[in-house]
């Protein structure tokens, strides 16, 4: 469904990505793990078209999408939940969801999508008239995911969705991601909660210094000694 080949991204003359290759098949839940500054967010932003790539190839359902503008990539069904949530803080929860369904195709199904989002996060239904900025961190993350649901994603890319959340909230978010994947949404998940991430994923990539250093089925990686040592602290 999505394949990234030898992607090179220069960021302020530094090589942020040095030839990254990655595959996400339809229906997959793929994890991308790695320490801070390893290039995970850069990779996501390149796929979304926010950052221009230096070289390489990104194919989406058989067509190249490298160089397309972010709004057109969104039109293709590749939706990102960005790091730090980036909500429209002065707009209400409802308006944030509406903006998720900005494009006509999504807008046509906005009512069903909203119903689905409120089913998943009943708390948001209660808070729908509050401004997004006034919510707690966990609730804001719910809005961020709900906004992405509104966009009718084919591929949902989440960047650190559990960052800064209480363990309880984090668990809820991972639960939701798994649930979305069960509803036929392909997921690419970045997280530093390696154990939880690998538990729900079926395939995983490990990045260091702008390179993929390890990849394989998530269950296998959970048992990999290098992972145990570096990321799980075992």
């Amino acid at each position, binding site marked *: 469904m999505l394949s990234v080949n030898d992607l090179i991204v220069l960021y302020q003359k530094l090589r942020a990505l040095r030839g990254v290759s990655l595959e996400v098949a339809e229906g997959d839940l793929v994890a991308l793990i790695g320490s801070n500054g390893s290039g995970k967010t850069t990779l996501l932003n390149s796929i*979304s078209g926010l950052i221009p790539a230096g070289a390489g190839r990104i194919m989406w359902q058989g067509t190249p999408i490298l160089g397309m503008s972010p709004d057109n990539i969104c039109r293709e069904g590749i*939706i990102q939940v960005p790091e730090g949530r980036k*909500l429209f803080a002065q707009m209400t929860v409802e308006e944030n969801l509406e903006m998720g369904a*900005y*494009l006509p195709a999504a807008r046509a199904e906005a009512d069903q999508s909203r119903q689905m989002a409120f089913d998943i996060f009943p708390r948001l239904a209660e808070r729908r008239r509050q401004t997004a900025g006034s919510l707690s961190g966990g609730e804001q993350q719910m809005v961020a995911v709900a906004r992405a649901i509104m966009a009718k994603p084919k591929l949902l890319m989440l960047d650190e969705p559990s960052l800064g959340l209480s363990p309880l909230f984090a668990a809820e978010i991972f639960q939701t991601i798994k649930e979305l994947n069960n509803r036929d949404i392909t997921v690419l998940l970045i997280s530093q909660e390696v154990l939880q991430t690998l538990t729900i994923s079926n395939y995983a990539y490990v990045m260091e210094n702008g390179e993929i250093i390890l990849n394989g089925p998530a269950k296998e990686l959970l048992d990999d000694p290098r992972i145990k040592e570096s990321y799980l602290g075992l």
Partner: protein
Amino acid sequence: MNTVLVIQSLISGIMMGSVYALLGVGFSLTWGVLKVINISHATFGLIGAFLAYTLLKWLGMDPIFSLVVSVPLLFFLACLIFRFLIVPITKAKDVIVTSMILTFGIAIILENLMLLIWSPDPRLLTTAYTSKVLILGPFYFQYPKLAGFLMSAIGVLVIHFFLKKTYTGKAVRAAWQQPDAAQLYGINLRRISMITFGIAVASAGAGGVGMAFLYSFDPHAHNLWLIYLFLVVIVGGVGNVLGAAFAGLIIGVITGLSLAFLPYQWVNLLTFGLLMVILIIRPHGLFKGEV
């Protein structure tokens, strides 16, 4: 105390201030949303005023109806200017300063074009209702000022509801608050920016007609009007539509009260003194910046 004079001054001042608000609301919007300080904003207002004048003289068209012509025309012109002049400078390091220099140049070019087309003679908008008044008890509501006030109230509310209630308007707010996230959800930043600029400039055209209801004007008048724009933005807060409206009212009240109570030569001193005080105590304006 001369109550009638005070209240009359307030009535007249508020009607006047509201026109400043309509002239300034778009200036505030481009500044807040696009980070473009459009020095030529009032110049577009002046084009609106001259178009109203010409349509009135040629076709006897009421200045308010002339907006049907001038608003779309200015919107279109603004989109062209945005596409070919503003977009290139959004890549500059300091967009605010670069935009000021660029739009200052646009203002000079437009001023000279107006001089060629309309000559430097001062003009007055004279309609059938120019000297008509609505008399309520001891108070006079001059029709041109009422027209300016109503235009302004409608104009500001239209922009407010556009931003609050329409998809495109919400996209403008979203793009201002989180440009990256807005793009990730399918908002074409350049298109939305162009629409914002277009609406701002078109609203200036309406504000210019309002100004022409109050004052005489010539191709240089925008230099003076520009001062009112800064006044509205600094009192009302950058990018704040309702703030601009309140700023207009506040300016009107202050002008009205000082005309009623103080020697007249204090009026401008007081108004601009107030501006300084607001800048010092609330550099972001009296109202919280929000579109």
